[in-house]
């Protein structure tokens, strides 16, 4: 399997592709099936955000090792309008699109590490990691 998988996001079918590739990669890396589902759900949320707010962008998937810890890294990148208030975007129920407002905060709860870097007019990059549980 390649070190890094890049999935362009420009239509709703790409959201499905991204989460399926993410699940496959997580399975390959030895994540439990529960964690595979959690990872796929988080990818689904952030990939849909790309479509909703920026129309297009990309999701990259890769594996990382930190000492004897292994994990999966998901980066969602777009050149869209950016997020005016990242703090608020991470609050449950806050949405500027008429959605449930659970995409970003929900994905953050699902993952171990979560970082959003965004600026108005500069696009948005979401980086999230999930570490494989030891002895799992």
């Amino acid at each position, binding site marked *: 399997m390649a070190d890094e998988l890049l999935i362009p996001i420009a239509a*709703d*079918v790409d*959201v*499905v592709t991204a*989460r*399926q590739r993410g*699940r496959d990669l997580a399975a390959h890396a030895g994540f439990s*099936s*529960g964690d*595979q*589902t*959690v990872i*796929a*759900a988080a990818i*689904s*949320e952030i990939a*849909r955000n790309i479509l909703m707010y920026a129309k297009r962008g990309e999701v990259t998937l890769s594996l990382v090792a930190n000492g004897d810890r292994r994990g999966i890294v998901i980066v969602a990148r777009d050149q869209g309008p950016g997020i005016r208030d990242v703090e608020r975007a991470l609050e*449950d129920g806050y949405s500027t699109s008429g*959605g*449930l407002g*659970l*995409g970003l*905060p*929900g*994905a953050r*709860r*699902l993952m171990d590490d979560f970082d959003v870097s965004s600026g108005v007019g500069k696009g948005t990059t979401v980086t999230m990691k999930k570490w494989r549980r030891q002895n799992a």
Partner: protein
Amino acid sequence: MEVPILKQGHYLIASIQSALTDADLSQLREALIERVGRFRARGVIVDVTALDVMDSFAVRTLRDIAHMARLRGSETVIVGIQPEVAFAMVQLGLTLKGVSTALDLEEGLAFLDRQTQLRIERGSARLDRG
């Protein structure tokens, strides 16, 4: 990928076979709401056993289906949410508040039978009084 909708007695059964895009989910919603009227269905079952992920869009669409079907006089029950999917949904903060669920198709059918039976009994009680 279109979701097949079967008619069984007074019920409609939508059995999701594979991963669905947002457009597929919206299409399922339209098709079910239209068919509730066309077939005068008293109940709707959406079987999500084959869904390996339920994200916020899927949950919102299922909730919409249940609420819209109720407005059209039909009860909805979602069946087959897998344990890992339930776990991820709770962590995402997604609930199906106000929507009935059952373990599997068999339980879902039993649930609808009880619901529609109740409604018939209530209806006939009213008739007796009238």
